[in-house]
């Protein structure tokens, strides 16, 4: 990663930390939803979806419940589409029984402005009517621009707006890590 090496990058979470954070979130979901009854985990592509599958694995391990898991792409619902060239779409993969009447736990890697989550709520609205929606995130880096908060947080990470948070996951990037990259003095 030459790009990262050039800037000052600091690993704030390593593999084992991510592992422990996800384990705790899985336990919290079980606790808050009384054994993950009627829960559907929906990840926001790409890394949120990976995290959703990992959480489902852990929940199955701890209590033997098979929680339906899927992905919901939010590209077409973004409010900043017109600020950048049209981007490729991610995959939407809903569990066969859908989301109607269930508790949906949205999963994303980093919670920042809250705009992604707002888009996800809109997208969710078009695929069904969940009984409730909760939010799980690996990293909450603050600087919210909308009235949105996470129900399950892996790590609260105070950042400045000029910094970047980059999440690497084994499945997509070959290793597990969360890096905090100092911003250039732009």
């Amino acid at each position, binding site marked *: 990663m030459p790009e990262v090496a050039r800037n000052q990058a600091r690993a704030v979470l390593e593999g084992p930390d991510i592992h422990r954070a996800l384990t705790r979130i899985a336990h919290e979901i079980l606790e808050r939803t009384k054994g993950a009854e009627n829960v559907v985990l929906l990840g926001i592509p790409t890394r949120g979806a990976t995290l959703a599958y990992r959480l489902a694995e852990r929940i199955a391990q701890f209590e033997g419940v098979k929680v339906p898991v899927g992905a919901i792409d939010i590209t*077409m619902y973004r409010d900043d589409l017109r600020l950048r060239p*049209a981007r490729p779409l991610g995959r939407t993969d809903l569990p066969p029984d859908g989301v109607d009447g269930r508790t949906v736990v949205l999963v994303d890697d980093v919670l920042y402005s809250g705009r992604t989550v707002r888009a996800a709520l809109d997208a969710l609205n078009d695929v069904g009517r969940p009984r409730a929606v909760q939010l799980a995130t690996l990293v909450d880096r603050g600087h919210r621009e909308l009235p949105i908060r996470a129900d399950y947080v892996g790590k609260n990470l105070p950042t400045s707006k000029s910094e970047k948070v980059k999440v690497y996951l084994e499945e997509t990037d070959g290793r597990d890590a969360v890096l905090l990259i100092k911003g250039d003095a732009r």
Partner: protein
Amino acid sequence: MKQHLISAADLTREDALLILDTAEELARVSERSIKKLPTLRGRTVVNLFFEDSTRTRISFEAAAKRLSADVINFSAKGSSVSKGESLKDTALTLEAMGADAVVIRHGASGAPHRLAGWVRGSVVNAGDGTHEHPTQALLDAFSMRRRLGRLEGLKVAIVGDVLHSRVARSNVALLHTLGAEVTLVAPPTLLPVAVDSWPCQVAYDLDAVLPKSDVVMMLRVQLERMNAAYFPSAREYSRRYGLDRDRFARLHDDAIVMHPGPMNRGMEISAEVADSARSTIVEQVGNGVTVRMAVLYLLLGGSEPAIGGTE
């Protein structure tokens, strides 16, 4: 800046694959109960149709509406065109109305290209004369990939009135870009003069080509564009170049049959073949909406278009 979709030949392999992959994701939207996406809210798409069309116009209209764009339909009949207004004046009128995209079908080859020089929005060619019909080629490639799982190395026979077919021209260009091998099959009178320079094979004997083909695309015999005797009689054409039950039986088991529509049943394709399970003709219509959604999204969805050629 990339802005228009005038010709399938303008699309790079990356552009074409981006459109097909985007369409693949959008196909899932067509399966759910709420088929609308908010993406193009507030954008205006004008359908400018100087030639008759059912499926292409409706398909573009459905695609734009599913993306929440406002659609203005314009057909030459009953408009100022019948009072003698020129294409340029029509274009300037649309420009003044703030069209973000103009989808144009015109009888004259090159009309979309001219239009692109007059308007600020994106121009999408929905068929110009005997030149090109890029979205048809895209939806054909999409249908093939969905049915057969790949395009690379696929053997595609395009059969019939190649001379008058913008569909054939666009398909040859796009399929070549995507790595398929195209063979045109037609009587010599229905092949364009410059066909040697196209990136494809040419054959005159349909029966010899059929067993080697993965896809057989039948073209409509365009009687309305025929001002000379290109073949002795419809009956003879049908006997030598029509896809009937006997010829259909010569295809290998996984091969598919396509037709861009509208069909002349009994002429280039028999009703039995058109309605068989291996015909993608109805599927092609559904895929047309998804592929056109992908094109409109990639041209209009962002701050600047992600595909297409510069003019």
